[in-house]
């Protein structure tokens, strides 16, 4: 895998007269597993919304696999890029399988329904996120973790080469969060480009090859995890003292909170 999957140049985006992101440049190559970190309000979610095409840039451009996302029709965009939102609500009476099938929408023709191939693809995605046994359950009866796996399956069913996640692990307990990141790592090894907003620093440092830090709407650090995940960078970005030490088993950098004197 090579070549640029995401090319952001001069991106200014936000709401009204006060943009959240200002003049951001970022290139993500195909096959990378990148984490986006930063304090609250730094523009992480805004970046994901702009990348997924739901928030039009106020200035600058975003290209996905070579094409400006504004020039791509919505379905073509959804065949290139899937998004797992921060929060999803179950819908009364809607079956989990039907929700996952919505991920096949970009492949549907105007009048044809979802075909056998779509059904198989949806079931395979549910199997991968270990929620196939929930396929006939109504989504409003699922727990937060179960629903998250169903929504993840919907994104995988979109069959894209790029997956965006917005703090997808934030409502999950430790084991479920590990499940999610292990799945992302396996998919990434298979060629999927992953860009995830993370709120758990250590989880991101454990799995992401590259980290991008945002602060106050600007990109403030970017590089391979071992290079940028340092005590100095983290302490500056988060405005509190953090200590970084290697993980005892695999040497990945891990952050430790330091109580203030």
């Amino acid at each position, binding site marked *: 895998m090579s070549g640029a999957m995401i090319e952001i140049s001069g991106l200014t985006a936000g709401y009204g007269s006060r943009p959240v992101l200002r003049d951001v440049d970022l290139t993500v190559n195909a096959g990378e597993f990148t984490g986006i970190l930063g304090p609250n309000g730094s523009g992480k979610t805004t970046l994901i*919304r702009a990348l*997924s*095409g*739901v928030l039009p840039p106020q200035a600058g451009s975003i290209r996905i696999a070579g094409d400006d996302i504004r020039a791509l*029709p*919505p*379905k*073509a*965009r*959804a*065949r290139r890029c*899937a*998004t797992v*939102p921060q929060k*999803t609500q179950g*819908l*009364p*009476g*809607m*079956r989990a399988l*039907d*929700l996952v099938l*919505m*991920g096949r*929408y*970009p492949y*549907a023709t*105007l*009048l044809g*329904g979802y075909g056998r191939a779509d059904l198989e693809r949806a079931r395979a995605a549910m199997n991968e996120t270990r929620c196939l046994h929930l396929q006939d359950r109504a989504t409003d009866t699922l727990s937060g973790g179960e629903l998250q796996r169903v929504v993840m399956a*919907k994104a995988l069913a*979109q069959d894209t080469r790029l997956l965006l996640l917005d703090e997808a692990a934030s409502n999950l307990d430790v084991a479920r969060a590990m499940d999610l990141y292990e799945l992302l790592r396996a998919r990434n090894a298979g060629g999927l480009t992953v860009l995830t907003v993370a709120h758990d620093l250590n989880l991101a440092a454990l799995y992401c090859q590259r980290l991008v830090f945002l602060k106050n709407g600007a990109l403030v650090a970017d590089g391979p995890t071992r290079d940028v995940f340092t005590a100095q960078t983290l302490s500056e970005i988060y405005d509190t003292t953090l200590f970084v030490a290697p993980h005892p088993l695999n040497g990945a950098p891990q952050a430790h909170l330091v109580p203030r004197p």
Partner: protein
Amino acid sequence: MDGPRRTRAWLLLAAAVPLSVYAALFFGSYPLPADAIHEALAAWLRGAAETQDLVIVRDIRLGRVLLSFLTGAALAVSGGVFQGLLRNPLADPFTLGISSGAACGAALALGLGWALPLPLAALAGAFAAMALVLALSRLAGDFSRESLVLGGIVVSTFLGAAIALIKSLNEESVSAIVFWIMGSFQGRGFEHVRLMLPYLLPGAAIVLALARELDILALGTEQAAQVGVAVGRVRIGLLIGAGMLTAAAVSVSGIIGFVGLVVPHLVRMLMGPSSRALLLFSALGGGILLLWSDVLARTILAHGAELPVGVLTALFGGPFFCLIMARGRRA
């Protein structure tokens, strides 16, 4: 609901339609024995000479029965679309004031003598009311269920008064005003079926073609856009389709409330939220409900007098509306 049960429900409703149409032929102000009705139907099929019975059965009864079925179907489908699109269980063409807009458009065209097909004038009125209600609801800050219905009440009360004014200025009788505000099928038949079909059929085709998008919009606009739904265009398409259905119904029957609220709500409870099934079942259910409501409306009073069918649907629908509101509060 699973496949076999859905198929059974589908067959049941599909069989109930011709049976209802047939059974409804037996009710009317002029007493006709069953033999005479069968004879008239047979004469019609043979293409025999016109008799008085044949004219009653075909032109007066069958035309009206079909019209009430199609109107009920149109109202229920457009109600289903509005409920899904606005994610609001209290939405329907009546509560949103869209029926009043359509009626006001039609009344205006009639009053001013515009050479405009009635459903087209109703359509213009429906869209104007729709825009007004959505704007009012946005003014109140959000598209919450209460603010939408509140906007609908304001708009429909105002437009109801406007209809009464237009009619009064044209020195028309109170009954003409009542016809538009409390809809009725009195004296209506095939001619009106022909009038509504050019708006009903395309409207139904549009909303059915967009049923899958309507399902996905239930996730919210952002997630819908992320799986590739052209949210803006789909919304406008659905509003146009549902507006056409409302206009088709109102231009032949006046304002009939609550059919569009009650039917999709019940269907959703029984069938689950899949939009395509919801809209199809609502069409059949709404048609059957209004057909029988109309039979009741024209037989319930003694001495051949008629109750406007809109009075009946409001009498039954009002309490139902309260029930949905109470359920929503608890949830």
